[in-house]
């Protein structure tokens, strides 16, 4: 029973990792770029949502849209300022990625300056219930997290498979050249991709804040690494892989905390990254990119 409880907790936690990982994957899909400021986008979403709730009141219903909008804006800005100008020039191979590192540094310090460097409470209130189902305890917070995450993943799936715009996104990810020649406005698609990826991250920020009752300007670093690990685990460019990768990391993390000191918990994601890169660079479900040579 304890194991089942841990699995349940892990899935809840992991679903937030999935949301981040999906964002990484979407960006990688269209630009073959590893967006190293994505963790900071997640963090900004949480902080802006907090401010909005503090100023305007309201609970989840206010926080989630606020985070989504804020993060989407920040994400698009990052693309326009730090990525797009570089993609235009045939420069260094890693220049765009290095540039996102710079953007991340800026965002993190801005957040520290504006919101202080400490952890702050995240008082997004909601009615708290606790259910006991067959020996497992589930809180309403967990239910909300799971519902929102899974709901968003489902929505994304429907979006990319059933809407014209969504299919244009997939086409652009497959081949920008070909989709361009088919008349797809790749620059708009890229903007949309960044917006969606970032909005998901922002929402994840609120969910994580709710689940831990606090947020800090440094939470983006950790989350960023875990999302990255989930993406690598699931296979670069593979959105469904990223979803599952996040869940897997969440579950294994929770289970390992039971047996290891909790301060090693964060290192676990790094081990996953290293193990994947060493033993199965294509990820569990296969990637769309060349990893070796």
């Amino acid at each position: 029973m304890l194991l089942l409880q841990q699995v349940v907790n892990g899935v809840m936690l992991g679903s937030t990792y999935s949301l981040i990982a999906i964002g990484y994957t979407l960006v990688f899909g269209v630009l073959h770029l590893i967006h190293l400021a994505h963790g900071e986008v997640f963090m900004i979403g949480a902080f802006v949502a907090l401010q909005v709730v503090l100023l305007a009141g309201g609970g989840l219903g206010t926080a989630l849209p606020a985070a989504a909008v804020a993060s989407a804006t920040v994400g698009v800005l990052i693309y326009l300022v730090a990525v797009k100008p570089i993609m235009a020039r045939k420069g260094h191979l890693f220049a765009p990625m290095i540039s996102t590192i710079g953007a991340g540094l800026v965002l993190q310090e801005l957040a520290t300056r504006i919101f202080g460097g400490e952890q702050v409470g995240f008082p997004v209130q909601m009615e708290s219930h606790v259910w006991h189902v067959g020996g497992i305890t589930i809180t309403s917070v967990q239910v909300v997290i799971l519902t929102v995450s899974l709901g968003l993943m489902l929505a994304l799936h429907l979006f990319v498979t059933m809407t014209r715009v969504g299919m244009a996104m997939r086409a652009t990810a497959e081949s920008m050249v070909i989709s361009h020649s088919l008349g797809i406005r790749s620059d708009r698609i890229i903007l949309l991709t960044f917006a969606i990826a970032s909005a998901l991250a922002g929402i994840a920020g609120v969910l994580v804040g709710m689940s831990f009752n606090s947020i800090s300007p440094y939470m983006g670093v950790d989350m960023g690494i875990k999302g990255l690990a989930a993406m690598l685990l699931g296979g670069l460019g593979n959105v469904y892989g990223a979803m599952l990768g996040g869940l897997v990391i969440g579950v294994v993390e929770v289970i390992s905390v039971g047996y290891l000191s909790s301060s090693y918990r964060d290192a676990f994601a790094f081990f996953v990254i290293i193990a994947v890169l060493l033993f199965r660079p294509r990820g569990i479900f296969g990637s769309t990119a060349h990893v070796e040579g």
Partner: protein
Amino acid sequence: MLDPYIESILIFVGINIVLSLSLYLPVSAGLLSLGQGGFMAIGAYVSGYMTSVMEMPFWLALLAGGVVAGLVGLLVGIPSLRIKGVYLIIMTMGFGEIVRVFYLNFEPTGAASGMGGIPVHTTLPVVALVTACVLFLCYQIRGSRIGRALEAVREDELAAEVIGINLTQVKVAIFGLGAAVAGIGGCLFAHYATFIDPGQFGFQRSAEIFIMVVLGGMGNFVGAAIGAVVLTILPELLRIGGMQEWRMTFFGVLLVIIMIVRPLGLIGARR
């Protein structure tokens, strides 16, 4: 006598040159590492422990810090150098964080509270000597048989292989050397700061070292050194302007601008 403020700046310039060269070495073979902070930590902790707790002579500790960091670098390098480009960057990031988390939990060196009481040994003459040695090392490598092989590996790994260059040997060796130099930089740092904690060697540190090399130009060790000088002095100018709290913002913006305008750095590609 030199003004103490100027002296401390010069000492940091020296330490940062050592650190940026520690990254330059693997970069010269095409290996981008975002984990030099981890090797720096190893050098700092090992040498700091040796001088403060075991009361061993400084130069021995310096050597030991470099050697241990170098050995870890070899160990990490062996399996990971099959991995190319971007993935190596991620992997070294992960490694750097693992080292940080390790020291965060390692009681004998103070865990999260850090380790203090490290005797001051890093004076200006010491730093100048070590920096000069590392610069000399880079200069010597560049004009040598090994230097040519490193450049060949960076330019075209496949072509290098078919003319008989063993990629793994070359890459692992330079990666280990870079790690050792980072460890030496860490030792210098520890014996100036007298107190070290894991937070000082995390991703931010690796990113700073990375920025130094990127800024100065990745094709040339002189560029990396200049990048270090610029990046040490610039924040001091910020201090004069009262904006020292925005250091990382400044670095971040600088990084973005360089990538847009001159991705090859101030000095540019090769010569």
